[in-house]
């Protein structure tokens, strides 16, 4: 009894252990046997030198050279070596370009070229080039990113008015351009020329709603990048329509009230000297009014901030008077910016990227039902009234003679 019971329990535990260990490391994939890609740039097809040479040797498969996707892979071994103090000037990333028509096929083709297959979990930015976006539906271009389970919906989408591949190159050996782009998008609290970042998840919503929208534009020159204005995507065709410059983007931010910080630069009208306003808060309320067939909007923009730079010398008549005058100057500046962007988008391009349609939908759903089919066209005719109110709450601790005088 004794002996058999122990031997049998031993046998059973052996079977359990056996079953456990027979499975091995089921579907495990060590992280160091993978490569992480953090950025993708999409451009019109332009076969690279290496690809040309490889194809000459016979490395080809049936495809149309519709677009070139550049995949930014991290090479942390190099980064790790650099951290240890070795002055290796090796870049911490590598860009691999593939030309073809299916994005998924191109990414899998990379597995033929590196020993470490790609994983998409850490994809941070997708940059689409000007040419590609003008001629192709963005929804189709990004379809793979929407469908892939590995890729997070928090991945950000940008547009480049040059070739997108350039934005994934950097001069300095310490920077990973993809991280840099994603990082600059966080600087909204410093300057009001950055759109709220457009993630894949948000973009999916824009695609569904069919409205026109803006994407942040990234440009690059000599390995230095800059956020410069925004790209306008038409809701119907989902193609690139044109670009807004920095000042116009600033107007967009003011009109939508999405800014978290930044500045307004103006000149004092009496002395013609520079004054600058730092934005502390910004709020915009847009109301829609329907009068028969006429649709009009009224935007009230309020902001609080401080006087951060003042070049006017002595002789400002009185503190309050001067501040009111400065506020006035700033308000005019803002109005001018908004007017300009309205002129560009509403009149020239004929698209609503500023969210007026949404207000109309909320406030006048019945009217919206009637006009939504051809909203961009209807919007062209709508009038927009502006009311800008900036107030200077603070002018710093410097005893400014012009202000302290009175």
């Amino acid at each position: 009894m004794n002996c058999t019971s122990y031997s049998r329990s031993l046998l059973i535990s052996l079977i359990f252990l056996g079953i456990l260990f027979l499975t091995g490391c089921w579907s495990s994939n060590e992280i160091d046997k993978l490569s992480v890609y953090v950025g993708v740039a999409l451009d019109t097809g332009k076969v690279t030198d290496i690809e040309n040479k490889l194809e000459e040797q016979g490395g080809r498969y049936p495809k149309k050279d519709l677009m070139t996707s550049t995949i930014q892979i991290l090479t942390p071994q190099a980064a790790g070596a650099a951290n240890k103090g070795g002055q290796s000037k090796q870049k911490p990333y590598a860009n691999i370009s593939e030309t073809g028509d299916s994005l998924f096929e191109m990414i899998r083709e990379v597995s033929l070229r590196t020993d470490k297959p790609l994983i998409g979990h850490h994809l941070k930015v997708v940059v689409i080039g000007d040419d590609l976006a003008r001629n192709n539906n963005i929804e189709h271009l990004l379809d793979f990113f929407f469908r892939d389970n590995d890729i997070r919906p928090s991945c950000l989408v940008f547009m480049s008015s040059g070739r997108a591949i350039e934005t994934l190159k950097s001069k300095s050996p310490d920077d990973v351009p993809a991280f840099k782009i994603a990082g600059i998008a966080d600087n909204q609290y410093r300057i009001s020329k950055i759109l709220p970042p457009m993630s894949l998840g948000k973009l999916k919503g824009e695609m569904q709603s069919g409205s026109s929208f803006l994407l942040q534009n990234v440009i690059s020159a000599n390995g230095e990048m800059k956020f410069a204005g925004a790209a306008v995507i038409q809701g119907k065709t989902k193609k690139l329509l044109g670009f807004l410059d920095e000042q116009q983007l600033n107007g967009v931010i003011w009109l939508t009230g999405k800014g978290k910080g930044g500045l307004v630069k103006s000149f004092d009208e009496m002395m013609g000297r520079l004054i600058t306003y730092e934005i502390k808060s910004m709020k915009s309320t847009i109301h829609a009014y329907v009068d028969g067939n006429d649709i009009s909007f009224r935007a009230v923009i309020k902001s609080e901030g401080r006087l951060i730079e003042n070049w006017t010398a002595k002789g400002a008549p009185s503190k309050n008077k001067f501040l009111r005058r400065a506020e006035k100057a700033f308000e005019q500046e803002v109005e001018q910016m908004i007017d300009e962007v309205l002129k560009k988008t509403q009149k020239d391009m004929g698209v609503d990227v500023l969210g007026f349609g949404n207000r109309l939908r909320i406030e006048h759903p019945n009217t919206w039902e009637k006009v939504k089919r051809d909203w961009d066209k209807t919007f062209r005719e709508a009038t927009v009234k502006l009311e800008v109110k900036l107030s200077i709450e603070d002018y710093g601790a410097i005893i400014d003679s012009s202000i302290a005088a009175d």
Partner: protein
Amino acid sequence: MWKSIVAYIPDWKVFALSLIAAIIPYAIYKTFDWIRTADKMKSGESMDSNQTTQAQDPNEWFTGDFAKDLEAVRHEMARHSDVYFREFQIGGIGLKAAIVFVEGLSDKNLIDKHIMKSLMSDYEECPKDRHRTNGNLSKEYILNKVLSIRKVDEARRIKEMTPKVLTGSTALMIEGLQDIFLLETSNGKSRNIEEPISEGLIRGPRAGFNENLCDNTALLRRDGENPSLSLIKFQVGKREKRDLVIAYMEDIAETKLVEEVKRRIRKIDIDSVPESGYVEQFIEDNYLSLFPQVQNTERPDRVIGALMEGRVAILLDGTPFVLIVPVTFSMLLQTPEDYYERWIPGTLFRLLRYFAVFVSFLAPALYISFISFHPGLIPTKLAISIIGTRGIVPFPAIIEALILEISIEILREAGLRLPKPVGPAMGIVGGLIIGEAAVQAGIVSQILVIVIAVTAISSFSIPHYSLGLTFRILRFIGMFCAAVFGLYGVILFFLLLCSHLVKLKSFGLPYASPAVPYRLSDWKDFMIRMPLLMMKRRPKMMHTRNPIRKG
């Protein structure tokens, strides 16, 4: 209609899978059940065989003939070289007498100054004849007038006498008396009351139990005037008998619980019980469980605290470790200091300990599953540095972690064995030099060294050593689960553990209480410790006879 219903009926594979999913847990349950019943049957058999007791030997009765009895005793004690015989004559009467004692166990002073002296020199002629029968002294006279000894027993048989003498009593044989006296002179050396090593506190009494049962019960008694503290004596061990005392509060502890403890202690059937760990293993509910179901402690304040909650303490002679039953999981993560310090730090330290438990048995498992299964769950920057440091490591994560974990375990074990002065030196060699060299040589990655170090530190913060052992074992099981199934395996392992904990009982008290079964009023003293002001009642789960603690 029918077709659309049929379309929703799953494939036979689904049924087969669900059948397997049902059979496997049932099979596990049955197996363990079967192992347990097999063991019970075995122990039942052995119980039966032990029923026969030795027959009495009539020759062992004392005859009353001094010379003959002494010879018999000498013969009996011939095997014990440390037993001494001292023959002498009583005072003026000239009666022969002898004392038998064990050198070292008996109190030399007592024998010399009180027994010998009172019998030999100070003995006065009996004033009255009624004390003398046939020229001999009466038993009563010696007991009442001569022996100035606190505790005197009588023995009529050698069998009765031998064990007493061998535990330090002195046997006194007097010519003409059939019985012999057993004088309590035992004077075993015992340690002073010192601070317990295994359960140090910053704030709290410095006293710890020692190896002497009398000292230990005295410590409990001395804690405060409390007539309801009951100390019930048992003897355990068949060949080597030891005293065992169960302590409880008469008017607090549930009668059923006390009876259950007594029942289980009576059932202990073994040659000798060297340590209270033996008792623990004989009375615990589930010997297949990894979790300790009896708490051991060296601290009297902890015992008193438990008694006041209606628990029962078991003290065994010869060990400073006192057992407390029943025990819950949360109890093992508490220290008396939680109560001595104010409630906010007490609460925070408790939460910290729960966190440390979590880290100590899941951190390596999580590391493995993140590294080898879910690279997407690591923050990007961290993933980069992990890839960077792991780049040259040739092993998969599980082997890497096992190498380091096992060396840490060996290091710990070695640290215990080594003499005190060498210990720290070895810690430095093992921990620092080998760790650093292993990273340099690319056998393990730096991140893993951090993970393992944090794990080890966390496991040291578990206040109960036995529970720490449990989690050390569970850590390895968790690591294998992680290596096989990734995070999914870790979750399965955790669920299995939870279901085991919920099912486990200690003396009828669910181990996971008060979480399961859910008793909100007991949560005042669970993960957080409420102010003493609010803890007006004893724990409800103990079903105490007197539930009110305060107010």
